[in-house]
């Protein structure tokens, strides 16, 4: 084990970039699971689907980020449809929605994953862009541009979503439905419509998150399994449904993963997110920045 403050600083720096990226890929889940209480285990699978769609659209000559933005409305509609289906089949009937709802999303994740394998094969896919492959030299440290781009987009996404949820009428309605659904119903609003809208936004955001995923590194269909740990770790650590908390939790995960990567090597890195998740669930299930 090699240890020096220089290396540590570099690891923390990289961890901050990585952490913002993790926050961005988790923020959709923070809405769908954190605010709406939908057991959305298929979130990472939808995100990887977003990566592959970005791969196709970017193949037409678009910049991957633009491709991700273009895909957002499509994914929004997809999300609305998924929620509508989930509501009609499980939430509305009420009884034992827990086990079956979980099984439904778990099955959905597998269908998406295998669908991607059948269409694209198990090979890794990448996209081309001017900022992929080169890095910014900052004194003696080198920061890859692809991480910086993901960092920037992630930060924008988090800020926009936080503002949307706290300043706009619909955003506040989404928060209200998370707090007290019967009360919202008494105010004359339709909670199902609002949840549908919110789930659409969460899924739309995963399209952009998927675009960043394929910018940051090569993507393969089974990547969603690893991201179950990362996204749920961030959302639970953040405290369900807290947007600023998501950013903080992403940073914690990013920095710890980056430090473990430096000190113990890549083979231990996947366990960091899952280990952290287990510790948080065991000690403080309400998260650090709870609502």
């Amino acid at each position, binding site marked *: 084990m090699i240890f020096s403050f220089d290396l540590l600083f570099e690891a923390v720096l990289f961890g901050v970039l990585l952490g913002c990226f993790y926050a961005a890929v988790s923020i959709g889940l923070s809405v769908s699971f954190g605010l709406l209480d939908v057991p959305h285990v298929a979130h990472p699978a939808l995100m990887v689907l977003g990566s592959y769609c970005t791969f196709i659209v970017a193949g037409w000559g678009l910049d991957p980020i633009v491709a991700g933005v273009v895909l957002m409305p499509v994914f929004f509609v997809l999300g609305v449809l998924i929620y509508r289906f989930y509501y009609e089949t499980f939430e509305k009937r009420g009884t034992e929605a827990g086990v*079956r709802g979980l*099984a439904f999303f778990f*099955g959905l994740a*597998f269908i998406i994953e295998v669908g991607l394998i059948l269409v694209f094969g198990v090979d890794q896919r990448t996209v081309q862009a001017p900022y992929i492959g080169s890095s910014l030299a900052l004194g003696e440290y080198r920061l890859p541009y692809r991480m910086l781009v993901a960092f920037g987009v992630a930060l924008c996404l988090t800020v926009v979503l936080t503002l949307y949820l706290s300043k706009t009428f619909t955003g506040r309605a989404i928060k209200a439905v998370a707090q007290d659904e019967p009360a919202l119903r008494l105010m004359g609003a339709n909670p199902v419509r609002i949840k549908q809208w919110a789930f659409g936004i969460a899924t739309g955001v995963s399209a952009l998150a998927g675009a960043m995923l394929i910018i940051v590194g090569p993507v393969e269909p089974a990547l969603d399994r690893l991201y179950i*740990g990362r996204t*749920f770790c961030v959302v639970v650590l953040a405290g369900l449904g807290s947007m600023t908390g998501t950013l903080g939790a992403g940073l914690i995960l990013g920095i710890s993963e980056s430090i473990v990567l430096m000190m113990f090597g890549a083979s231990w890195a996947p366990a960091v997110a899952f*280990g952290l998740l287990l510790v948080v*669930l065991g000690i403080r299930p309400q998260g650090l920045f709870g609502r």
Partner: protein
Amino acid sequence: MKYWISVAVLLIVAFAAALSGVNEYFFYAGYIVLTFVVLATAWNILGGYAGYVNFGTGAFFGFGSYAAVVLFKALGAPLIVQIAAGAAIGAALGFGVGIMTLRLRGIFFAIATVAILFIAETLMVNWRYVGGATGLQLLRPEATAPFGSYTRMLFVVMTLLAVIAVSVARYIQTSWIGRGLRAIRDSEEAAECSGVPTLRLKLIACVVSGALMGAAGAPMPMYLSFIEPASSFSLNWGVSALAMPMIGGTGHWIGPVIGALLLGSVQQIVTVTISNEINVLVVGVLLVLFVVLAPDGVIGLFKRWTRSSR
């Protein structure tokens, strides 16, 4: 009584088949289907009776396999000891998971089991003694006396394990344990208030379920003559072990058996005739279809059918 007679007949048939001249492939495929019977039955004890969804079947299964490999490599332990070790480590992990149910329910519990699965895989990837990420080739010992090949022997062993698993699940379902677990599934607070010892029951369910999964994993390295972390700790074990009871019906011990025989056989046919990827797709699609359209599985369909035809 009828149950035990059919069990005895089943065991005799399996034993006779293993000694007869039936094609080797039958045992090769049958072994996997029987493994699924054990896994689905074990999953159902916790997931179906008590309503705690476990995605981490692979963790129990994989640890069972690795316990067997370590004992085999270090001491050359015989199969029966390997299976006992697999069951023991599965039970120990089950106990840990049972403690977790104190604080975690629903999706939080489910996600925690995924976490355990990946941590287990990472541990084994980094353990050199068992071959790390690349895995380990194993030299199978000679098959014992009456059996013509090792696969045939494993088939009979797995039949026995499946019978044990199903009998245990059947006992749990009809005894006070099953009643308590059902009470927990319907409302844990109400059960606790009515004096049901919820923690003890959940611990029993977790330990039994874990031990059976561990035991099911133990003969796997010998079956493949090989072990590696990625497939031992695959999430695919989890989705199959969850899908089979869901398809068969979770309320009754026969449900997981029906589901495993049905889905397991379809999987074997699909793997041979089409491809390995399609077989996971079949699991996913059937799981979603059944969860949406037939919430009580094949058993529920059957009940509805007999009621309407009367």
